[in-house]
């Protein structure tokens, strides 16, 4: 009798643990599905100057103490990617290698890093990440004009100074989606998805994953 109970108990525990493993595997699969169906686009926020409007025209001082113009016509006909970051934002740091590569490989795109706070802290941050000090501006007003509430935030401005795409960017794909949005003539990937399906399911409406 005791042997039978022992065997049955062992068998039951094996099956319970196996079921636990299956449940864990299923939840992981659900997580993977979540990531796959979430549109890889920058989350567009309806704050600040809208896409299609001219970017606020500003003359700012960069970390190398030279003036740097934001907005208005670019004499060299480059697009400007304005990237709002903070040295204390871990997600911003993960995007820096992609941005330095864009700076190096895309001469028609001017990447400008924007932040505010202690100048010395930013100089050390720019140096440690190999960022060009002449493309790094500190301006509280710039953030206020674009109404940046969450980081990392990026704005793509065309050569004529018009905002072409903007949004919260958490991944390289989100950054790419800004350029893709401009190429397709939409304000954001969210608008593109809305156009593709007139009645999108609820999870697709807002799109993109929000930042920390």
């Amino acid at each position, binding site marked *: 009798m005791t042997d039978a109970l*022992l065997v049955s108990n062992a068998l039951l525990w094996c099956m319970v643990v196996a079921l636990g493993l299956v*449940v864990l595997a299923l*939840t992981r699969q659900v997580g993977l599905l979540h990531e796959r169906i979430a549109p890889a686009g920058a989350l567009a926020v309806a704050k600040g100057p809208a896409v299609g409007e001219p970017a606020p025209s500003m003359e700012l001082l960069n970390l190398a103490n030279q003036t740097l113009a934001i907005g208005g016509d670019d004499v060299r006909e480059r697009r400007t990617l304005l990237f709002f970051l903070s040295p*204390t*934002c871990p997600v911003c740091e993960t995007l820096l290698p992609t941005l330095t590569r864009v700076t190096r490989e895309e001469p028609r795109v001017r990447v400008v890093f924007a932040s505010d706070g202690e100048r010395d802290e930013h100089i050390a941050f720019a140096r440690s990440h190999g960022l060009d000090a002449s493309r790094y501006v500190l301006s509280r007003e710039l953030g206020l004009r674009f109404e940046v509430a969450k980081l990392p935030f990026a704005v793509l401005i065309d050569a004529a100074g018009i905002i072409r795409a903007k949004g919260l960017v958490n991944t390289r794909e989100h950054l790419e989606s800004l350029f893709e949005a401009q190429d397709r003539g939409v304000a954001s990937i969210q608008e593109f998805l809305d156009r593709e399906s007139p009645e999108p399911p609820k999870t697709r409406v*807002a799109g993109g994953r929000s930042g*920390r």
Partner: protein
Amino acid sequence: MDPVFHWVTRIALAILFASAAHHKSQDLQGFGATLREYRILPSRWVASGSVALAASEGLLALLFLSGFALPMASAAAVFLLAVYSAAIGVNLLRGRRQIDCGCLGPAGSQPLSAALLVRNAILGFGAALVFLEPIDRSYSAIDLLSIAGGTATLVLLFSASSQLVAQASSSRQIGSPS
């Protein structure tokens, strides 16, 4: 309390705290950034605070496993979980739901939610159970099976439910207007 329940709770808690300490020590800088986002500790204490939390979780895992100073370990674990819950609760009240809770380690981020408070309450109840002395009785082979199977199932279900909570909170965040 029956020794089977005592051992299952003790070993499961030891595994939980050891894995939490491991996550934190793997990426102390990342955990520091998460801790700073909670906006509870002054920034100059964040670095030492993250080391202290990781170390105390590691110590709790050792105490639960070894059985040394068990009543103290049980009280300390309840206190630590209460501190975590208070930090989460304060940020939920502040409306800062979008920050990472720091529960999943470097593997992923999970926004704050009330479900985390429920989770911590259940864990705290488990930690408080360890405070009770197990009754003195002889062990049989079935007891060993129950302890091994129970612990494994508890740990698996805990990881699965943590993932479900993380997914539920992040999909809610996707759907909500920012």
